[in-house]
């Protein structure tokens, strides 16, 4: 592993009987980044995270997390990773205080002062058993038990599922506050872009077990544009001649709309200008991460359905 990447995988794959859950995943998560790992339900996000945490064995390929081989992460590496997942089965018979007391000795970097502060911030009752907490409270207790040891890498697997908006906001604020101060790396998986758009600076999109895209949010946003062209005459022939990186073309009367996924490429504007007659009106507007994700998700569906442009 190079010191500037917290996670690296090479051709990582996992097969469940006949189904390829993850296929040839090659990924690099820069140290200090907030990496949003996005994809629709069943895309392979959780399987990837479980392989990264050594919970599941990879069928093939290799990878490192904080320099440790993911085939078998050593306890000293795991002690630097904070993992929060909606699927994790907590020891429900413990109280919040019992959980914190149990976790503390395993982590040499455990910070009592930070734990106290987070406890107040999250407003968690120390003497309440985990099984008697609401889902949101339980997630907060889980998060507290990992933030208190100041992890170098925070691995969040669908952490917002089932949380009400207030708790989501508290959760995100808690994470953001600390990561900004500590320069931690965060790897967060979600099927909902709204939740991660606020704080992610890198994004990876997985679909059907394949990584379709992995780049910085800045790079992604400069590359994608929503383009609308109003032609003087018939638009059908013109829209069929669009390059393959113009996604989801739509024709409505004399208007052609599409997503340009290579807007930063040299001579891109010239190429588009050449494609359309000079008397057209062409507007290109920047897109939010959410719009880009949705456009890509629609494009993936189109490709799977055999209707790709």
């Amino acid at each position, binding site marked *: 592993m190079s010191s500037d990447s917290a996670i690296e995988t090479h051709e990582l794959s996992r097969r469940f009987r006949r189904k390829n859950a993850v296929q040839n995943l090659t990924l690099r998560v820069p140290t200090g980044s907030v990496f949003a790992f996005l994809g629709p339900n069943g895309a392979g996000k959780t399987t990837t995270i479980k392989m990264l945490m*050594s919970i599941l064995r990879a069928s093939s390929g290799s990878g490192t997390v904080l320099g440790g081989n993911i085939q078998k992460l050593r306890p000293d590496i795991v002690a630097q990773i904070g993992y929060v997942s909606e699927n994790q089965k907590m020891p429900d*018979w413990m109280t919040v205080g019992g959980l914190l007391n149990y976790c503390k000795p395993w982590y040499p970097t455990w910070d009592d002062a930070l734990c106290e502060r987070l406890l107040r911030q999250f407003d968690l009752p120390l003497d309440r058993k985990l099984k008697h907490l609401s889902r949101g409270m339980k997630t907060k207790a889980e998060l507290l038990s990992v933030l208190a040891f100041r992890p170098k890498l925070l691995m969040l697997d669908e952490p917002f599922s089932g949380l009400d908006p207030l708790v989501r906001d508290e959760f995100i604020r808690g994470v953001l506050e600390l990561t900004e101060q500590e320069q931690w790396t965060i790897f967060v998986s979600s099927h909902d872009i709204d939740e991660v758009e606020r704080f992610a600076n890198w994004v990876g999109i997985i679909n059907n077990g394949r990584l379709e895209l992995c780049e910085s949010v800045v790079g992604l946003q400069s590359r994608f544009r929503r383009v609308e062209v109003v032609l003087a005459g018939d638009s059908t022939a013109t829209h069929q001649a669009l390059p393959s990186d113009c996604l989801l073309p739509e024709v409505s009367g004399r208007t052609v709309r599409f997503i340009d996924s290579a807007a930063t490429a040299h001579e891109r504007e010239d190429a588009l200008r050449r494609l359309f007659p000079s008397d057209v009106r062409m507007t290109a507007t920047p897109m939010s991460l959410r719009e880009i994700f949705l456009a890509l998700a629609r494009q993936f569906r189109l490709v799977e359905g055999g209707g790709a442009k």
Partner: protein
Amino acid sequence: MSLLAHHIKKDIRHVRWLLGLWALLVLAQFVLVGMGSRAEPDDLAAQFAYQAITMMLPFLQAVLLIVIIPVLIHDEPLVGTTAFWYTRPISRSFLLWSKTLFIGIALIIFPAVVELTVMAANKAPLHDLVGIAPEILYGSLQVIVPVFALAALTLNFARFAITGVALYIGLSVLYLAIYLLGLYFRGVEETAVQSQTLALSRSMVSGGVIIVTGAMVVAVQYLTRRTGVSYALVGLGVIGMMLVGSYWPVDFMKLPQEAPPQNAVDCATLSIEVGDTSSRVSSSGRRRGREPEQIISAHMEITGLPPRLKDELPA
């Protein structure tokens, strides 16, 4: 405080009520047995109550064992992908060591020590205590190791119970099938074990196979979490246990030949009278190459037995 002590303390906290009850039952059983019944010989109700309690206590202990071990193991399950400990800096070998130590001390050594203490309090000679200690431990291991292994193979108590029942039914059916096939192909005499001590030897070795297989399953589950390999080991263990139970040849439990016992029966003075009520005599049967035989079940009166043997026989 070491991490091992920290982890064991957590386990004790989790099963403290069950463990307390278990300890109470163990103490009660051995103290009651050690004291013996204080009831008058003609106080049948008290005698019966004493017998019922001393018989019930080991059963309750076994039931508690079947609850305590899975609860303990399923706190850090070895199957599935959602366990809390997978994402914490706890090594597999550490966990194996911690659980084994807990079970070893609380569920094997503690009752053995209580039992030996009660025996010692009842003036059992030291060489007898030394001789019986391995037998006590062997008996405990035959129960605890398979339960430990089954718990290590399952995710929660419900699955543990279902798998356990399925395994029990499956093994019973298999045993029955093998026994019936033996009867069909080999006849009653050859199917029946010829010597009690050989049967005991086979049972001892079968128990050993169970312990070794269980221990291997536990080790594989903890160190590799390859449940498929563990189930294959269970299959091999079952086959091994059945083969050993039926064909183990060495009768190591047979005592050396000694002089005839004092209570040897003189057949010339022995008379057996078969009662004329409630007696049943089967029709004469004959299997290939054998003498005809009849099975008689009846009330019998035996006279002429030596006094010592008479005392040992049931009324």
